[in-house]
């Protein structure tokens, strides 16, 4: 059976199926599957299948390259071949539904979690956890890079009273089971990092003048900044730190000027 009586809808469904899944489609009245030759012309140099193959090969190569661009550190961590295998499977499972390629990798970390190779085993390997965290972190960076924000608020100085300090408009806290931020920074600086061992880590991502700033911080700093992110003042966040970490008030007061200086230098704070 040929494709002469294919409607426009059927023709587009057939072609998309051939590109995305390579599944032959039957027309609406059933019968034999149509062949490429039934629908596509041959030319002087190429037969119909080779004409269609240009689109088929380009589809996966194009989106794979896009994934590698969006997850460059993960590509390095996994190695190009393994990344490609995961990316191809991901694109098959979650083909793009958006008009923009910026969101192509939105579900990639979730997909890696769903398909981790030790999923059925009682004893889990550790490296998939790192890869899943790294994928989530890299995608988050691409979102933060483009998030809307008031970019030109007054930056705090060391003279700004504590009561007038507020977090920068683009300010995100991350907590990981692995040193993900450090790994990403090392990769970005072409230091060819080794796969890290598990180690709880904390970081801040800010954006000033439309460029991202990545900073590794300590657990107590994360806890303190998290309280400020939840709307608490410097004073209340310090009190929570004292109660939450069993710190002495004198110790917190002693360390605070140094923290304040570092946080302001790193661009964490604006002045009200």
């Amino acid at each position, binding site marked *: 059976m040929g*494709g*002469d009586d294919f*409607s*426009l*809808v059927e*023709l*587009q*469904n057939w072609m*998309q199926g051939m*590109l*995305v899944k390579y599944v032959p489609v039957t027309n609406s009245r059933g019968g034999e599957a149509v062949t490429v030759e*039934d*629908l*596509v*012309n041959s*030319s*002087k*140099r*190429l037969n*119909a299948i*080779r*004409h*269609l193959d*240009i*689109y088929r*090969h*380009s*589809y996966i*190569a*194009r*989106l794979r*390259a*896009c994934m590698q*661009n*969006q997850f460059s550190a993960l590509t390095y961590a996994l190695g190009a071949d393994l990344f490609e295998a995961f990316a191809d499977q991901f694109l098959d499972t979650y*083909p*793009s*539904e958006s*008009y*923009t*390629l*910026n969101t*192509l990798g939105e579900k990639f970390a979730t997909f890696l979690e769903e398909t981790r190779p030790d999923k059925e085993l009682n004893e889990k390997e550790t490296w998939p956890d790192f890869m899943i965290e790294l994928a989530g972190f890299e995608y988050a*960076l*691409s979102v933060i*890079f*483009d*998030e*809307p*924000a008031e*970019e030109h608020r007054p930056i705090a100085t060391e003279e700004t009273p504590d009561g007038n300090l507020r977090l920068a408009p683009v300010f995100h806290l991350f907590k990981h089971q692995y040193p993900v931020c450090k790994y990403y*920074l090392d990769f*970005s600086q072409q230091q060819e990092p080794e796969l890290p061992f598990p180690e709880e880590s904390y970081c801040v991502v800010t*954006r*000033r003048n*439309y*460029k*991202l*700033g*990545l900073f590794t911080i300590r657990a107590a700093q994360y806890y303190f900044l998290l309280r400020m992110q939840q709307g608490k003042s410097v004073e209340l966040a310090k009190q929570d730190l004292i109660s939450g970490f069993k710190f002495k008030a004198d110790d917190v007061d002693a360390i605070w000027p140094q923290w304040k200086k570092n946080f302001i230098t790193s661009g964490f704070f604006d002045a009200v």
Partner: protein
Amino acid sequence: MKDKEAYSNAVKCLPNPGLGLGLRSKHFNYIIEHEPAVDWFEVISENFMDSGGRPRHVLRQVAEKYPVVMHGVSLSIGSTDPLNLEYLSKLKMLAAEVKPLWISDHLCWTGVNSLNTHDLLPVVLNEESLKHICSRINQVQDFLERPVVFENPSTYLTFKQSTIAEWDFLRYMTEETGCGLLLDVNNVYVSGFNNDFDPVHYINQLPHDSIVQMHIAGHQHCGDYIIDTHDRKVVNDVWKLFTLAWQLTGSVATLLEWDSNIPEFEEYHAELLKAKQFMSSIGSGEYITEHGEQFEAAVSNPVDFLVNNVLIN
């Protein structure tokens, strides 16, 4: 609903801003710092419509200093899916901010059943699809309250169900909707080689008074076929077609596309300015000839530039 005559008249009144370049992130800093003498910039709508960060910030500055045209890759005018109203709303909002000379996209479809292949897929050229596409162009133009300009894409296959030549299909589109045309001279060359038609005949048959812009670009010859890669200089035969089109259109806005292996700004600009040498029939410019030994495999990647590169301090 506006009359198609009103859109058609609006198309014929669009200005010719001269020779333009694509605005690419690699050149953001150079353009802001040096304000080079480029007549106008073409921006990829999808690169900016969702941006609240640096791309949008740079675009605002560029639009204050240069004429801008918005060129899209996701309208999917040929798809049998419903039009994406969220996308159209964002396109309209960006246009309200940037105030482009015109908005363009492609005669293609990008996917169905809510999927997006992120490719400019070929439309079947027959009465059914012409009626379908013209109806959608009318809806889009009424939504955006302005005529839309459509580009002939590079194609790598033709359908057995096609009964209308592409140049006639484009002509009927302009007659039925009043839309404008963006003639991509390189795409005509690429499609002609791939699908056995004469590019000179194609260009001769177009409705030249509806053409408001031209694209020129480099491509990859793969031996049995050509891929529209936008990654190198324009070849001899494409410059010849440009000379023909320049004469037939009476000169229209012209843009050099370069989206992969993007050179430094000065080199990119210099390649564009070669167009001045090919505006007369004498064509005294320096030609690049394709040799068989240069054939390589290539991937069609019309949306290679759509992912932001994150900048880290």
